[in-house]
């Protein structure tokens, strides 16, 4: 009899990491090919169509889609580095979007400032960072002082934010000239993010700068070191005199602020008003982005681009190949499942174990 046994790898070799990931992507594509063939499509044509759409014909849309994913990926990265499980990026994104839209819609009536994006974009960014940070601060305080499980609180706070946002765009902030249809008024043109080409807006640049900032904070500062130290070994961190309360609160302010910026860039760069379609899951996808990027800020940019491409390319399966929407979604899910699932093989290995001879000799 041969036994298989999972063994923890003592050392995570970089080659095993690459090998496992490449293998998992190849496997995912192979199984995806079976699925496509079953659905009646030529897998090679289908993959080619997807790649062409994601990174050639619709590359601009891939950038548009990647922008919020970079922000939410960074948000999750910061918190997860400290092993603080912030599942609330979605809600923090929503309140960030609310703050940005609120500032753009109502502040110009209250204060008189030059009507220039250079004035208003920083105001809206600040508002959304503050809103996201405040929203994240509540679960952080609950965790720091009462030890309340942050997975539960951050998750539930998503729903509060989403329902409040629905109330605002269908009721309190509804456009009075909108004939009863849901949605706020459009934000003034001086509060919109400038666009480069197509719908690609300045948000992508802000996202990349944010990634660099997060990398500097995490890797080059004492504060980042404390975050990482707590993540690696909280007991050791405490012995070293690291203040856990302070770090929990700081990490959530940073994490919530990043997610808030995602909401800002969606409002100011894409939708230009508060309406349905702000809470479409970027916050949750951010978790996948951060995880696949191994909590590396630059990795977040790359993974966000790849995932955005997967989403954009998935539509192409329907549009040019007339496959049902479900096939595209299953394919996307399969690729993620394989890549995430393979993760275990970078930390563990399968070993063939021969059972001890003494036990079998009596038979």
């Amino acid at each position, binding site marked *: 009899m041969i036994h298989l046994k999972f063994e923890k790898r003592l050392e995570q070799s970089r080659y095993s990491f690459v090998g496992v990931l490449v293998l998992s992507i*190849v496997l995912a594509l192979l199984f995806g090919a079976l699925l496509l063939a079953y659905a009646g499509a030529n897998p*090679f044509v289908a993959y080619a169509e997807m790649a062409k759409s994601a*990174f050639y014909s619709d590359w601009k849309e891939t950038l548009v*889609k990647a922008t919020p994913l970079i922000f939410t990926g960074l948000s999750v990265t910061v918190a997860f580095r400290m092993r603080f499980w912030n599942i609330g990026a979605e809600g923090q994104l929503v309140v960030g979007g609310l703050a940005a839209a609120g500032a753009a819609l109502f502040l110009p009536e209250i204060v008189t400032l030059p009507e220039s994006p250079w004035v208003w974009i920083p105001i809206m960014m600040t508002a959304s960072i503050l809103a996201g940070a405040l929203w994240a601060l509540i679960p952080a305080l609950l965790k720091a002082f009462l030890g309340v499980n942050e997975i539960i609180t951050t998750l539930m706070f998503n729903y509060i934010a989403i329902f409040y946002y629905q109330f605002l765009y269908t009721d309190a902030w509804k456009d009075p000239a909108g004939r*009863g249809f849901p949605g706020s008024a459009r934000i003034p043109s001086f509060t919109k993010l400038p666009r480069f080409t197509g719908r690609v807006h300045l948000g992508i640049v802000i996202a990349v700068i944010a990634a660099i900032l997060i990398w500097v904070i995490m890797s080059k500062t004492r504060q980042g070191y404390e975050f990482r130290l707590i993540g690696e070994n909280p007991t050791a961190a405490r012995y070293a005199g690291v203040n856990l309360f302070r770090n929990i609160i700081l990490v959530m302010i940073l994490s919530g602020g990043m997610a808030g910026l995602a909401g800002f860039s969606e409002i100011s760069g894409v939708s230009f008003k508060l309406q349905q*379609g702000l809470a479409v899951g970027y916050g949750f996808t951010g978790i996948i982005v951060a995880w696949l990027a191994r909590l590396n800020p630059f990795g977040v940019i790359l993974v966000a681009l790849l995932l955005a491409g997967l989403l954009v390319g998935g539509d192409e399966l329907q549009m*040019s190949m007339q496959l049902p929407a479900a096939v595209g979604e299953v394919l996307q899910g399969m690729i993620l499942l394989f890549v995430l699932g393979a993760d275990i093989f970078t930390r563990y290995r399968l070993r063939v174990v021969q059972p001890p001879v003494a036990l079998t000799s009596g038979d």
Partner: protein
Amino acid sequence: MKNRKLLILLSALLLLVLAVVGITGAQDEPMKIAFVYVAPIGDLGWTFMHEQGRMAVVEEFGDAVETAFIENVAEGPDSERVIRNFADDGFDLIITTSFGYMDPTLTVAEEFPDTQFVHISGFLTADNMSNVFGRMYQPRYLSGLVAGSATESNIIGYVAAFPIPEVLRGINAFTLGVREVNPDAEVRVVWTNTWFDPPQEKEAAEALLAAGADVIAQHQDTPEPQKAAADAGGFSISYNSAMLDFVGQSVLTGPVWNWGAKYISIVQEVMDGTYNGSETYWGGLPEGVVDLAPFSELVSEDTIALVEERRAAIEAGEWDVFCGPITGANGNLVLEEGSCLSDGEMLGMSFFVEGVVGEAPEDASDEPIGFPMEEVLPRGDQIGMLGEAMD
């Protein structure tokens, strides 16, 4: 640093695997028509009926058209990508079939002046973007007559998606029908905040049934509320398609869409170059774009006779649903006898009539209802032909 290098390597590999060049064979001869759907075509409701319309077009024109569709497209800014994709791919006619596609459709229409866009259920138009919808409130009113006759508990449940004018108009028309035959009955509304979510649609219906409703009406995409009513031994009024076919005789009747004829005429006119690309079309029972589903065998002869009489009056243009006297849910008289709401007022409806229990965006007041047409259509387009005759 280590991770970054690996990720670059990885993404390069993924790109390599994906980057197999393939170009679909180009066929330029037939007219290319695209449909953007909000739910899967198998929803047996709203999207299912649009898909029937697409198939009617294919059947009518055969090889002269090439159609494509994309289903399950989220409303809001993201749909702009999908619509632009179709325009980029050289489609001649793009039909977007949900309210939330209005702004994105307009944006893309302005970028592609040579492509014709048709948006369903909105209010904006452009030179190459028309607005098409139907007077669903007419068959909804007729179905209200049936529901009012059927209820014994005098509580009728209504599962509704969003508190927007289209849905409020339907609830009000339905309730006017209910109260005409049964002044003691009330219509209770539960909002789901989604067009398409089968479990949630069903749960909302179950909540209403538990609260004493014995007839369930709905403004959703699927037959789930009908199934909930049937399971609880109650009746229901369906929407979109003749759901009696899918659920059984407990579905008494229901308002239905017939997109085929309108789609065929649009395609024909676009082919001939005669289509009024910025038309605003709001057809009713006489045009056939809306209708009432066949009656269940449980509906009495008397009720059917009353419904047919009312239908005849509407089809002859003698009378319409929103003609006074009409009282608001708060008891104010909103419309005097002898006057009728204009199309603009109906399209901006934001109150409930007497008999509806639920929360509407605004209470009915003595002020004029809705908005004058000039204000509500920024591009200066007027909706409807029937309305002017009625004013």
